[in-house]
């Protein structure tokens, strides 16, 4: 049974009712032992867990320290293109937005790479809009080898692809794929995705399974927090993660928790997520899954990011640009979203070190992977 089938057969209304009627007793028992249990995850995500935020943080910190030490993995997004054939009302790259469109040529890409390399990064996240014909598998396949030459770990955040396409990219050195569901509520999903391939809710839900079958090392899941009821979306994400770990045990999993932020032609969140809510979410997932990687982008402000390291966050970006060509030629008109933490890499790192954490630039040696 695919996750889509499992998801479709869940009694959503009943689950939602339970989520909002949980009491302190259930939260307290979830605090003691929650690993791997979906009902404990529900308790920790519930409004009833809010008064327990400090206890959750203490446990989350303990677990994170034991599993990850004081290491924080460093990565950087590299925008390949802002072309997009979809319409997502929360995103600056939406097709109808008047925006200068651009895809990097291989020379421009090399230029971006050399600037990024100078800053010390060895783990890169390639990002593009979703434009099947102009920025599709052929484009990726031609660019990936250039990137792989310079970075040990290469992740991608692009449109969902077919299994054989993922396999092809894995052979070219792709290590990880980030693919966010945005929301697990099909109705809300349809409201916000009004044009293009991304309208296909099911194809997106099915994607992590195709990615896993293609032999990708790490899969990144996420929802856009605020599009719908974030507590419930996070719970569904927990179900998804649980399913994937059960069926694809060779993969690693990572979690991104982007909050809905203003962008060109943006919308306001249906259910805004406060800082406290974000902390609750991070701690709840840490208690649910001790080995889960959690990454935090520069969407979040510096002050908050610096306080979240110990509580479960394991990977961060720093000094990011969210426009194609933005490292060699910053313009700020081609941005996908506004950056909150605009500190330089070295500023971010010194704040991190002052808190007792150490940046890990390299945690992978790609040459010995997939030798067969």
């Amino acid at each position, binding site marked *: 049974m695919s996750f889509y089938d499992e998801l479709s057969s869940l009694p959503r209304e009943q689950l939602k009712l339970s989520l909002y009627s949980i009491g302190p007793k259930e939260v307290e028992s979830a605090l003691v032992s929650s690993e791997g249990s979906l009902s404990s995850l529900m308790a920790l995500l519930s409004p009833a867990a809010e008064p327990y*935020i*400090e206890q959750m*943080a*203490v446990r989350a*910190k*303990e677990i994170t*320290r*034991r*599993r*990850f*030490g*004081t*290491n924080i993995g460093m990565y950087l997004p590299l925008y390949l293109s802002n072309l997009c054939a979809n319409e997502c009302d929360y995103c600056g790259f939406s097709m109808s937005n008047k925006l200068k469109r651009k895809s990097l040529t291989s020379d421009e890409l090399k230029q971006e790479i050399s600037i990024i390399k100078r800053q010390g990064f060895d783990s890169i996240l390639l990002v593009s809009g979703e434009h099947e014909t102009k920025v599709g598998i052929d484009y990726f396949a031609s660019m990936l080898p250039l990137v792989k030459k310079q970075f040990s770990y290469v992740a991608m955040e692009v449109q969902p692809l077919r299994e054989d396409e993922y396999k092809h990219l894995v052979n070219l050195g792709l290590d990880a794929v980030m693919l966010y569901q945005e929301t697990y509520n099909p109705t809300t999903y349809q409201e916000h995705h009004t044009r293009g391939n991304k309208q296909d809710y099911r194809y997106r839900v099915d994607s992590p399974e195709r990615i896993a079958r293609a032999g990708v090392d790490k899969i990144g899941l996420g929802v856009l927090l605020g599009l719908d009821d974030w507590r419930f979306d996070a719970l569904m994400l927990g179900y998804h993660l649980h399913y994937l*770990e059960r069926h694809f*045990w*060779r*993969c*690693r999993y990572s979690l991104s928790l982007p909050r809905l932020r203003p962008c060109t032609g943006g919308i306001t969140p249906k259910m805004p997520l406060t*800082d*406290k809510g974000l*902390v609750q979410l991070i701690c709840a997932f840490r208690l649910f899954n001790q*080995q889960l990687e959690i990454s935090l982008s520069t969407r979040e402000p510096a*002050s*908050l990011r610096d*306080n979240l390291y*110990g*509580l479960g966050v394991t990977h961060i970006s720093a000094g990011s640009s969210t426009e194609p060509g933005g490292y060699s030629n910053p313009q700020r008109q081609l941005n996908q979203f506004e950056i909150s933490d605009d500190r330089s890499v070295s500023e971010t790192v010194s704040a991190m070190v002052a808190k*007792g*954490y*150490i940046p*890990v*630039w*390299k*945690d*992978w*040696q790609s*040459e*010995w*992977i997939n*030798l*067969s």
Partner: protein
Amino acid sequence: MLMLADSQFSSRLFTGTGKFSCSKTMVASIEASGSQLVTMAMKRIDLKTASDDILAPLKASGVKLLPNTSGARNAQEAVFVAELSREVLGTSWVKLEIHPDPKYLMPDPIETLKAAKMLCDKGFVVLPYVHADPVLCRHLEEVGCAAVMPLGSPIGSNQGLATQTFLKIIIEQANIPVVVDAGIGAPSHAMQAMEMGASAVLVNTAIASSRDPVAMARCFESAVSAGRDAYLAGLGVTSCYAQQTSPQKPLTAFLES
């Protein structure tokens, strides 16, 4: 004195390099532990630039390096890493680690045995990290491993000797040193392993993630030598497990400001 392949060790405590807050603490802790054999992940080493903040201070401290193949998911990858480490670090010693399962980092017995044979044939000094499986340890001994390194409990879990029953069998049967690796979370666990007759223990997380790694390293040193003495004297004691205390300043205080 512990004989491992052609080398002698006066300390029976082996340590690692992961999870320390900085390389200074790492070196100070290793020194305090008295350890003479230190393992480190090849995947962490920056092969392109000569200077490296793990490698350089380690080399300077004079301990014997034990590169490990952590990150490898099958025999082929592990052999590749070992060959790379021999070339780069000039040592044929390798701690063989193959874990295709990223959740619990359980070692893969089939691939480990395959890789161990290939590496022994190529002249490596192989120390395989394995589950506490007595039959597997026999196979590994037959293919020529210098020692076996069965786990006490899942790696990084600090749960102590969950595999005690099987460790006893392995120690009883082995004709090569048995180094208890993974899961040792407190000096008492290390002591217990030594009392049971283990040749040595490998401790990393428990030292590195302690509030005071240097002090904890010293505690492990005493525990390991006391445990060894107790074994030789034929004695045994039970152990206890310490809970972490909660911090004085609330972790979520920043939310109120």
